């Protein structure tokens, strides 16, 4: 889902930066100073998750934890992702500095949307319902991120639309994996540290 440097057009870059600066500013305003350490920890977890490779048949993928970040942090997910993606660009050369705005928006917006839709549902008394909702949230976040990446490619050049479709299909197995991981994570946090979801 990381757009690489040199792929996006000027319009897409400006749109990405405008969206991510606005959302990060709102996120920073809504981040309580006492919660800043927790935000940093989740940001670190998001960063580290990208280093864990999971084998799927002959290929392998890495976790992105978009939905857990959104469900735990809400609006603060934007600054957390901006910092994590910045560090990924500097340390591992994933993505880049110029496309940081677009990449933050691509990953931050789905996290925020799943928080708005599923935030209350995963705190339901019914454990099974909560687990199922967490699964849907995890899968939906990846699908939305893949769609947004496609939109940015489409803004850059309409001829990229076929490549964007391919990108979308490639993310379907990852969406299922992320859904399962999100569901397990939410169930674990509900049992051991419900204050994380409050």
């Amino acid at each position, binding site marked *: 889902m990381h757009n*690489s*440097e*040199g*792929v*996006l*057009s*000027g319009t897409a*870059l400006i749109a990405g930066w405008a969206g991510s600066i606005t959302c*990060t500013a709102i996120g*920073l305003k809504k*981040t309580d*100073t*006492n919660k*800043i*350490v*927790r*935000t*940093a*920890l*989740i*940001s*670190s*977890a998001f*960063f*580290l*998750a990208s280093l*864990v490779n*999971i084998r799927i048949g002959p290929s392998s993928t890495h*976790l992105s*934890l978009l939905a857990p970040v959104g469900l735990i942090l809400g609006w603060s997910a934007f*600054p*957390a992702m*901006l*910092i*994590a993606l*910045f*560090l990924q660009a*500097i340390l591992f*050369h994933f993505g*880049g*500095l*110029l496309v940081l705005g677009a990449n933050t928006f691509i990953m931050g917006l789905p996290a925020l949307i799943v928080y708005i839709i599923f935030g209350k549902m995963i705190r339901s008394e019914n454990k099974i319902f909560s687990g199922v909702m967490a699964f849907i949230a995890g899968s939906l976040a990846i699908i939305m991120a893949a769609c947004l990446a496609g939109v940015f490619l489409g803004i850059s*050049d309409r*001829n*990229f639309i*076929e*490549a964007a*479709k*391919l990108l979308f299909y490639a993310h379907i197995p990852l969406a299922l*994996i992320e859904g*399962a*991981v*999100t569901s*397990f*994570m939410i169930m*674990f*946090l509900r049992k*051991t*540290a419900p204050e*994380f979801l409050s």
Partner: protein
Amino acid sequence: MNIEAITESRSHSDISPEVLLSCSVIYALAVSLSDSIYALALASVIPLLLVITKKLNLSLLVKLNAFNLIMIITIALTWPDFNGGLTKGIVIALRVNMIYIFFAVMIYPLGYAKIFAAMNSLNIPEKLRVLFLLTLRGIFIMHERYSCALISLKLRAKNLHGLMKLRAFAYITCSVLLQSSERSERMLQAVQCRGGFSGFIQTGHKAMSPYDVIMCVCFAVYAIAIIILNYA
């Protein structure tokens, strides 16, 4: 975090990190906007000079170009016209290489301390800078625990598959998060004892040196020349 590196005095021959960061972003922007072969030829002058004069990690460049090759093939096969797609893919691969070489020489070797100093000088909001420092600290703490947990998982259960494997990853992530959370609460209390986050960052703003000004002017002219050549 190397605190000495933040507070060290800058020699006259050094370019300040915020200027390097700004010039790199301006260069990357000019390259990203370029499609014409002449503009790209002009833009490739500095990366070529950097390749000749500086030592580059060639293995990373090879990996990058292996990815570029897949990208070129994908674009060529999905583009309405194969030759058009191939050209577009090659242009993008050229841009990616130029920007990567530039960043690899100018930005990536700076280190956290100088990048943090650059964030300071560029007036990035304090909350974001604190978040950057704490995230970096969190990565160092969590990475150690995460690696131990993954090694332990490999030793205990070599042949984990399917949902069990995903559940193990999810539980490890949550466990590490909770262990680090306890430590972070103590970190927060320590910060509050020292007077909170206001004044958490004490590095001062440095004035631009003549070298910085010359660098900025040169890069602005270079970027404008690339853009003009692109649209000419």
